């Protein structure tokens, strides 16, 4: 017995209430839960209400709100959503550590003359970072306007926090003593920009795939 449109709508609404309203996860959970309900209705000859109650009970543990250091303790998400976000968030944290070590080694390796020479071209870095920020801001506004939620969007919004150090770079005079810090912020801003553009692409690609 296949579920009708209203029964599918019931599952979707229930997932929304449980805060699993991110399209990429919600669509596959709706299908999984619907398949499980159909199986129970057929095998155990249960009605939809009873079968859906039992199936959702089985999923309870995955809907519990959880937090993690990688996504920030300010935000909590249903466990199944958090697991997906973490896979990507952990990768960015790893890049951040690698970037820190590489920048530290480079800044210790270079002599002061080379550092001065590199800092003289700082206006180019500043311009590039400003362009990155503006592109990200435009993407942010587009996503806000479209109002479609996916887990990629959560990560994209979080990546915008990465630009918090941008005013520091743009407004203050860059001195040689700050070479390591400036290089680290610049590299991280570049990584953050590439990461956020990938998320923007993945978000739009998924929306495109599901636009029926």
């Amino acid at each position, binding site marked *: 017995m296949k579920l009708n449109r209203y029964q599918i709508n019931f599952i979707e609404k229930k997932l929304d209430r449980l805060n699993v309203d991110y399209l990429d996860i919600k669509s596959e959970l709706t299908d999984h839960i619907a398949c*499980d309900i159909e199986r129970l209705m057929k095998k155990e000859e249960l009605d939809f209400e009873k079968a859906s109650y039992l199936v959702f009970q089985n999923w309870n543990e995955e809907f519990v709100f959880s937090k993690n250091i990688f996504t920030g303790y300010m935000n909590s998400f249903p466990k199944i959503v958090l697991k997906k976000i973490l896979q990507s968030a952990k990768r960015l944290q790893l890049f951040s550590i690698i970037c820190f070590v590489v920048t530290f080694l480079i800044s210790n390796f270079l002599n002061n003359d080379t550092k001065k020479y590199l800092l003289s071209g700082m206006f180019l870095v500043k311009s590039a970072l400003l362009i990155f920020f503006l592109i990200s801001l435009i993407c942010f506004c587009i996503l806000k306007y479209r109002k479609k939620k996916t887990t990629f969007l959560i990560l994209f919004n979080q990546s915008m926090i990465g630009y918090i150090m941008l005013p520091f770079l743009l407004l203050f005079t860059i001195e040689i003593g700050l070479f390591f810090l400036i290089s680290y912020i610049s590299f991280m801003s570049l990584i953050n920009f590439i990461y956020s553009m990938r998320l923007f692409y993945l978000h739009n690609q998924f929306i495109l795939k599901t636009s029926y």
Partner: protein
Amino acid sequence: MFALQNSRIMKNSQLYKGSLNTIIMKLLEENGRMYGYEITQRVKEITKGELNITEGALYPALHKLEAEDLLDVEVEKVDNRLRKYYKLTEKGTTETVNRLAELEEFIKNMQTIVNPKLSY
């Protein structure tokens, strides 16, 4: 109710957890493309109910493989809802061969250690 409780019985061993990705990849290699629920049911069917992949383990594994570009996703509208099909990418197909060889080697070595008489 009994059927649902019964389906919760699962092999929660670390040995199975470590092989979950390889199991998924092997199934996709055999079946072309599959959706989440289908994978859990297929595993249950093959192992005659001995092995039950829980949803909490299946989806993170699928999402991880997808993020690593080993799986590709196709979305279709089926029975009033969207269905997300997973299939192996070219990179995923090559990786499946490697992982299966690795798993076979592991089983062979374990066999030698656990039951030397039966080993070959």
